[in-house]
């Protein structure tokens, strides 16, 4: 069979010979290339891989291993690879693989926080994370010291590192409605925000940190006053109703405002981390500096109904403190219940008076607490009084005033707290005086006065009866006589009475005499020589003269020498 086949192959065509083909072993290039590609991927990944850090959070809410990115300025710098519970189960630890380029984030100053959607009165942030899921925000510090374990912040820091501006500390009694991120206003323009807050170590107050952006940080001076601008400040004064707010947002969400006090003041820009006091409202903030508070105590013997804690303490009408405590005491000797009132006063609020008194006290070698000065003032009648500030509500305030008539009291200026002697208040005085008057009135013998009065009235009645019976008829007679007399006088003065006619004749005579006298004077005016020579015959005025020269004596005597 094989032989047959072999024979037949001769008929088969011969293969042609070609030029040599490419060496088959070149196919090994393919796996080499594949290996190179794989290797390059490995090297790439190795080069790209940055440090791995652990960040602990309170909760892993929103953290998705393998997915949640770490972002800085919205650039992805890493990714959460695993999330696990801490050994004591109090927090979670997210392992984050940072990129090579983000190596600098694995240093001590870096901060990490979870960006979740936050909706507050101050605004909405992180809204993009509503759909895309939370991410971890990062902020790098200045430190170069490597670090791989971080504690994540529970809320985003309001100030990123390296932002131009200054940080200041504010001390306050309480936080109010402020929160991290609350705005800080200067002339109602937002210039910064609250970056953090914490309780003071002794628990007596809160310290807030605020950050003021450049260039507005220059407006914070060493004498700037900060106040809490939250809410609405409504004041009813003599000039009407005043409503004062910073902005509607602060009414709801709170905020801080600052400004320099009016009048001359130091305007040196404040240094970073300077501390200020955060006042409750603008008025208090703008008031002159309080200085160091002093505690005083007063012991009132009367009831202090209407006096409340925080009631003002005034010195000669200047408010310079407030009541901080009201306690009832018991005095065994007098078996009374005096009220002990504690108050905090700020002597510096008295301004110049305080300065002068201090200077005077120093000059006289008084001690620090000015006990001698106080003793002198008390000698001059310095007393505390609880006065009524409002007659309607009966609220009281404490007034320190000079009452020269006040009885002298023993005063120890060195005792601490300083105990100011008291005097009964005005109202109490009036009450007492009224009571005195009432007491005196009670002593008046109204009964006997009444009896005496009764007797007197009876006497009077008798007298009047006598008058009626005896005196009055006499009077009638007398009046009748007088009437007759008047009738006689009346007839004498009647127009046709002889008296009247005589009087008319006499008056006519007098008229004539006057006329002739005038003629005589006229003649004498024209001819004065007539006095010596007598009357001339050709006198013209003669006929003008009265035809009958009066024979009366008076003018003739005057005209004849």
């Amino acid at each position, binding site marked *: 069979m094989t032989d047959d086949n072999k024979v037949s192959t001769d008929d088969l065509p011969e*293969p042609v010979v070609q030029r040599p083909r490419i060496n088959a072993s070149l*196919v090994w290039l393919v*796996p080499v290339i594949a290996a190179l590609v794989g290797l390059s991927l490995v090297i790439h990944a190795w080069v790209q891989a940055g440090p791995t850090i652990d960040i602990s959070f309170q909760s892993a809410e929103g953290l998705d291993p393998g997915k949640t990115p770490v972002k800085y300025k919205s650039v992805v710098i890493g990714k959460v690879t695993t999330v696990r519970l801490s050994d004591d189960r109090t927090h979670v630890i997210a392992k984050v693989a940072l990129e090579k380029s983000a190596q600098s984030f694995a240093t001590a100053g870096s901060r990490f926080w979870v960006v979740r959607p936050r909706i507050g009165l101050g605004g909405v942030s992180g809204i993009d994370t509503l759909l895309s899921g939370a991410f971890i925000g990062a902020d790098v510090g200045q430190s170069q010291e490597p670090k791989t374990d971080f504690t994540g912040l529970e809320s985003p820091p309001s100030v990123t590192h390296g932002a131009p501006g200054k940080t200041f500390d504010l001390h306050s009694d309480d936080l109010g409605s402020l929160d991290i991120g609350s705005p800080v206003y200067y002339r109602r323009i937002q210039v910064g925000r609250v970056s953090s807050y914490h309780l003071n170590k002794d628990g007596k107050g809160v310290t807030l940190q605020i950050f003021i952006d450049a260039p507005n940080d220059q407006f914070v001076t060493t004498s700037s006053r900060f106040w809490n601008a939250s809410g609405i400040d409504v004041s009813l004064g003599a000039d009407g109703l005043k409503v004062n707010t910073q902005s509607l947002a602060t009414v709801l969400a709170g905020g801080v405002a600052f400004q320099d006090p009016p009048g001359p003041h130091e305007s040196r820009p404040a240094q970073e981390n300077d501390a200020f006091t955060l006042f409750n409202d603008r008025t208090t903030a703008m008031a002159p500096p309080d200085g160091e508070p002093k505690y005083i105590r007063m012991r009132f013997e009367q009831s202090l109904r209407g006096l409340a804690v925080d009631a003002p303490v005034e010195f000669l009408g200047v408010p310079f403190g407030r009541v901080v405590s009201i306690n009832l005491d018991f005095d065994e000797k007098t078996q009374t219940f005096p009220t002990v009132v504690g108050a905090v006063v700020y002597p510096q609020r008295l301004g110049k008076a305080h300065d002068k008194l201090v200077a005077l006290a120093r000059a006289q070698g008084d001690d620090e607490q000015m006990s001698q000065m106080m003793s002198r003032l008390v000698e001059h009648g310095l007393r505390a009084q609880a006065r009524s500030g409002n007659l309607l509500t009966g609220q009281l305030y404490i007034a320190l005033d000079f009452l020269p008539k006040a009885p002298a009291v023993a005063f120890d200026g060195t005792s601490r707290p300083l105990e100011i002697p008291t005097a009964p208040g005005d109202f109490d005085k009036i009450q007492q005086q009224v009571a005195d008057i009432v007491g005196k009135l009670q002593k008046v013998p109204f009964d006997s006065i009444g009896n005496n009065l009764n007797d007197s009235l009876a006497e009077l009645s008798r007298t009047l009866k006598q008058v009626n019976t005896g005196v009055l008829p006499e009077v009638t007679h007398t009046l009748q006589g007088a009437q007759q007399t008047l009738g006689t006088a009346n007839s004498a003065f009647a127009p046709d009475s002889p008296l009247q006619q005589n009087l008319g004749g006499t008056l006519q005579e007098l008229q004539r005499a006057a006329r002739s006298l005038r003629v005589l004077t006229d003649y004498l005016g024209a001819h004065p020589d007539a006095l010596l020579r007598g009357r001339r015959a050709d006198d013209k005025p003669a006929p003008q003269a009265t035809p009958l020269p009066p024979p009366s004596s008076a003018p003739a005597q005057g005209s004849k020498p």
Partner: protein
Amino acid sequence: MTRLPRARDLGLVGCHVCRLVCRDVEAPNAACPRCGSALHRRKSASYTKTWALLIAAFFFYIPANVLPIMRTVSLGDVDDNTILSGVIELWVKGSPDLAVIVFTASIVVPVLKFFALGLLLISSQRGSRWAQRQRGKLYRLVEFIGYWSMLDVFVVALLTALVQFGFFSEVEPLPGVVFFGLTVVITMLASMTFDPRLIWDGRDFDD
């Protein structure tokens, strides 16, 4: 077992392209006188080429599985998936049937191909006479399923083209799918370069 004569024993060689039977002249660069394609008793350097391609495919298979192949963005939620994580996700999210299909097509089949081709190569190189018919069947199976293992690549290509709704939903391919496609293509090439006749050549014969 009687040994059947082979073309080599008869001094014949067949053209792989036009199937013309020629005389075997044992020249290294013989070509078909009719169609001009190269003439060889077995595919030239079949072992070398298949081994090289198989190893290359294996190299590509590693990044194909490690790197994510597809990114789905729905409502801002970015999700990168590798082949295996995709399978797990499908399973967890309530589509075990789909998960099985994808798992079979993307993981079982390529791995099977590596093993099958490796087995064929090693056994043939050693001239083993063990289960020659079954090995032949295995080779045909490998050839048959070869082009089905592009399933993943097709899925990614289709989704990328179809799901482009901007913010709401978006699918984009990631480098992993390229390596997966390369793996599939190169394993197909490897199974093509393997000459199944080598299975029956036995110990006394080599190219």
